[in-house]
């Protein structure tokens, strides 16, 4: 049974059809790419899968251990609680807070003390805070950000902000991670490092990753399967080698080699 099953998903904004009849599947521990020209509806699809938009039609099913749960139209924080995390195309960190706090906030949904226990500072509070601190620091050291834990997120260099966004998403303890253009604005060297990092994360945390990316070196290198969107429709799916020679994809997006 696939981890995520999307059937005939549609999103209309007034008369504009941003996504029509999208169907896709993501297996567990799989790396899937989502490519297509700008405006093809990739981010819209992400927004529906993570609860930001309510689908106009179709179903999204998430495999929750023994049964499938329909998550279409669920609120984003509930979707996150089901085990789906994401990063954003234009970085959305909590800029005024430290790197460590950014990660801790993402761990909040699993915290085991309630408000009164926090206000009266019960032993449970200190216990849980110590646990969170330890887990957050572990995660930061995996993401090679442990030296920066006290810095404001806003003061990090661009590449590290991207890394922190991934670290923060991982802190929600997801089964499925959506990365929206993780390599945007990176140079080839940084992109190569990111490629390794994504591969490492998939193995280390045993999660599925779906990524939107325009950098073909990253997509072709990394993804096991690729879906191609154009004008809101799914025009192709397959392995990287199949996609690279697919005439429809070449016409609409990849282009001919001159």
């Amino acid at each position, binding site marked *: 049974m696939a981890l995520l099953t999307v059937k005939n998903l549609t999103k209309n904004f007034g008369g504009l059809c941003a996504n029509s009849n999208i169907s896709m599947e993501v297996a567990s521990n799989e790396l899937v790419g989502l490519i297509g020209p700008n405006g093809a509806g990739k981010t819209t699809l992400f927004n529906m899968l*993570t609860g*930001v938009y309510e689908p106009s039609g179709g179903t999204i099913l998430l495999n929750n251990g023994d049964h499938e749960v329909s998550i279409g139209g669920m*609120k*984003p*924080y509930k979707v*996150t*609680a089901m085990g789906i*995390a*994401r990063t*954003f195309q234009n970085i*959305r*960190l*909590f*800029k*005024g*807070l430290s790197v460590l*706090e950014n990660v*801790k*906030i*993402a*761990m*909040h*949904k699993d*915290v085991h*003390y*309630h*408000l009164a226990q*926090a*206000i*009266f*500072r019960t*032993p449970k*509070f*200190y216990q*849980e*805070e110590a646990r*969170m601190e330890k887990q957050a620091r572990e995660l930061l050291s995996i993401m090679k950000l442990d030296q920066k834990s006290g810095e404001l997120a806003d003061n990090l260099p661009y590449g590290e902000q991207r890394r922190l966004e991934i670290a*923060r*998403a991982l*802190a*929600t303890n997801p089964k499925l991670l959506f990365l929206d253009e993780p390599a945007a604005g990176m140079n080839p060297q940084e992109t190569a490092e990111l490629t390794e990092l994504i591969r490492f994360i998939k193995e280390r945390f045993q999660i599925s990753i779906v990524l939107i990316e325009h950098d073909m070196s990253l997509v072709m290198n990394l993804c096991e399967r690729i879906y191609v969107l154009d004008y809101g429709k799914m025009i192709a799916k397959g392995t990287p080698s199949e996609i690279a020679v697919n005439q429809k994809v070449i016409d609409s997006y990849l282009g001919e080699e001159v």
Partner: protein
Amino acid sequence: MKQSFSRKNITALLILVVSVILLSVMFGLIPPKWQKTFITACYYIIGALGLNLIIGVSGQFSLGHAGFIAIGAYSVGIIFQSNATIYGFALGTALGIVITCAVALIIAIPTFRLRGDYLAIATLGFSEIIRIVIQNLDITGGASGLSYLSFEGINDQGMFIMMVITIMLAILLIVNYVKSSHGRATVSVREDEIAAEAMGINTTKYKTVAFLIGASLAAVAGAYFGPMNFFIKPGDFGFTKSIDVLVIVVLGGMGSLSGTVVGGIFIAVMNTFLQDYSEIRMILYALILVLVMILRPRGLFGNKEITDIWKKKTKGAE
């Protein structure tokens, strides 16, 4: 680990007790005119601490503080008609907090489902509704208000001590809230609501929690308002009252509790100096705000606290 925590708590408690005693002794020594000033300052600070939690911490813009202050003031005022003791005061305050929370929930449930500044409009409207309801009820004395609200068995000094303790408890409450996972969740709403929601934070819930705590503190401030002035009328709780409290928060710095305390004292002292020139008071208010916005756009303290000085020193020593 545990031991150092409890030692820290005992030290903090000692500092609190000593400072309360010192403050009350000092209070006894100053002239009555200035005693009144400091009681007013305490009243402003309690209300502004609540508003700072709403505006500075959760990032929601509320213009309805006057309404919540009015609820607190009238709850105590009505109970005081039959029982003007400390017990009546406690009962009235508790009643005020309960009613305030109910009203705040009615405002919060529809508005916090939306993103943006809807709260400002909703609170502004509700605060006026509260004032007009009070003006037309019999139990609240209508437009002429309630009088004879002096405290039985508690003089100005006693009230000052009560208010200082209230302020300290309020600061403790806010600090403990903000420096917990729930507090971080609330701050994340201010920083980036969409990202917070994507990280599993129920943003509606935490906006509501901060709003309820903030509104309750306004009710507590209102509870002191009657005994402080001996007299309350609906006109005391107009829109400008909300602005007074807002000025303190903006002046001190949004998100800074130290700033709110300093801002509250500053405004109360200013008011005393300008008692005889009430016409130019509002002009001076505006001038000061303009100057603050030019010279320190984030308020006197920004989002820093007085304790940060000490924190930086220990960091440097490491």
